[in-house]
């Protein structure tokens, strides 16, 4: 979490309360129910709103097929970290706000009848940051995919490592990457869908190790936060810098996929890679 990359208009929970919503990108007034039917993509301008893990799981999976595993793994606050508030207090607040215990949900699901193991990160939980629990769940998901000979799908959404867990969080980058190496050796398929944002410690570990890398339009993808880079080079950043389209242009993403097409695209790739 070297810098939470949040452009002015974007917040963790972007869709405000109320029956009508003004689109943060195009300003159009959208009826809330329509936005939900459109999978939280603006019907006028295709702006992809950030969504939480449960909404994503419901969108991706065949109805009622998702089975979560390791739901009750929680951080033990290894550093007894304290900034202006204690990490414990921060965790308690976030848990109460989100009803989640951590920044990722992992489990087994089905996409158009195809079984797979998946992990979905949650921007509402300390910016989807990776601490020991996220690292453990990613590694466990990779191992589950190996044991059950199923594809692994990771929907990434993260500001990076969770600094309140210090070095315990940094080493999760190595742990998750090692688990992905095992999956690779077993011949398993690994698909990543990068969503807004996929940066820092998560980008520089399991997110960028996929066999097939998809990204949602406009997603911020990169290592260093844009503000840090702007400070270093003492200049304004080029238009569209670190967006999904920029990463496609530079060869680091296979395809940019509209949210409504994710299910069929994932199913298609699974079929092509079926041995």
């Amino acid at each position: 979490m070297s810098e939470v990359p949040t452009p002015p208009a974007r917040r963790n929970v972007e869709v405000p309360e109320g029956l009508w919503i003004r689109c943060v990108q195009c300003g159009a007034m959208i009826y809330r129910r329509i936005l939900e039917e459109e999978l939280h993509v603006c019907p006028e301008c295709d702006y992809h709103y950030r969504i939480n893990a449960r909404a994503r799981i419901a969108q991706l999976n065949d109805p009622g097929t998702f089975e979560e595993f390791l739901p009750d793994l929680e951080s033990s606050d290894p550093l007894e970290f304290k900034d202006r508030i204690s990490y414990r207090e921060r965790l308690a607040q976030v848990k109460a706000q989100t009803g989640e215990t951590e920044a990722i949900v992992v489990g087994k699901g089905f996409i158009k009848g195809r079984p797979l193991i998946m992990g979905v990160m949650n921007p509402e939980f300390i910016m989807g940051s990776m601490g020991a629990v996220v690292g453990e769940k990613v590694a466990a998901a990779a191992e589950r995919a190996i044991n059950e000979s199923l594809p692994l799908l990771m929907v990434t959404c993260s500001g990076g490592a969770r600094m309140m867990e210090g070095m315990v969080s940094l080493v999760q980058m190595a742990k998750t990457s090692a688990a992905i190496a095992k999956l690779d050796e077993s011949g398993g398929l690994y698909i990543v869908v990068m969503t807004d944002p996929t940066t820092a410690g998560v980008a520089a570990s399991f997110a960028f190790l996929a066999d097939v890398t998809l990204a949602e339009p406009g997603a911020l993808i990169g290592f260093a936060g844009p503000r840090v880079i702007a400070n270093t080079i003492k200049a304004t950043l080029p238009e569209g810098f670190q967006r999904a389209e920029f990463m496609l242009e530079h060869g680091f993403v296979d395809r940019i996929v509209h949210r409504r097409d994710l299910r069929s695209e994932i199913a298609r790739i699974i079929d092509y890679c079926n041995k």
Partner: protein
Amino acid sequence: MSNPSSGGNGSAGGMTHVLEFEKSIAKMEQEIRRLEALQAAESGKDYSEVIAGIREQLQKALKDSYANLTAWEKVLVARHPKRPLLRDYIRLIAKDFCELHGDRLYGDDKAIVCGFARLGGHRVMLVGHQKGRDTREKIEANFGCAHPEGYRKALQKMQLAAKFNVPIVCLVDTPGAYPGVEAEERGIARAIAVNLMEMSRLGTPIVAAVIGEGGSGGALGIAVADQVAVMEHAYYSVISPEGCAAILWKSGEYASRAAESLRLTPSHLKKLGLIDEVIPEPLGGAHRDPEGAAHALEAWISKSLRDLRRLKPETLLRRRYERLRQLGAFFTSTAAPGVEPKAPSRSRPRRAKATTPLATE
């Protein structure tokens, strides 16, 4: 990532490189030098007793202050302008260093130096960050902040080493990977990720030591190893204290508080089970006695490689994976999914222990 332009210099005393907490020490050192010069100039005068007295005081002061450095002071010592750098260690302990350049894809990043060497009785592949000593070197090496080609060069040389069963020695000293437009365009995140993945399965022993700054992913990108150490006055952190303070305290002025909270000192990291060893430094830090520091580092490398080379390749790789796999600090609450769980207990049933003793292999 810390800004390299602010990351390299922790000196509070300008040209003389005296850290704030060392001011009285510096005064004594200066006085000893003055008296020695005086004695040399005026034959017949004997200051040796006075000098011996000051020396004694100096030793005591060094012991007192260096035994009790705060986390922030450790960071400052790790960044000390006179602290030995990779090239110094190469000069002091590597024999017959044969530098190998380039990543075969884009260029030759001066922030990461690689090459064959004879070190501590082993022939090894040496891989490390180079910060640069003078201004020209610093700019050339981007203050030790590597671009993607640096990580790709490191991997290419490490794969060469693995092919011929040459063990790998990684020496880490970086404020972080370079935060810049070109680094992003050339895929710095992917470059680090690939190193983490490939280092977890390279079939040759790897040891890694943080010799100065262990800055975040840029450090870890060459530090996945079978044995990991941090030198006594080095640090290893997920984020620079300044960066952490800017985000969590909304002000860089809280850097020393952040350094404390981040538990980035070698002794904390050892207690957390994240590193295997703290390599002792000479009294007053490596910058007071680079030879002494180099020999302590050499001894650790020599012993670690000797132990690791006894392992069968499959044991080595299994052990490396197990060590990575168990890194963590979490517990299983009894709450059902989606339900607000009970407050976590103080016990840490699954506190990971990263150090699988070599002796049991």
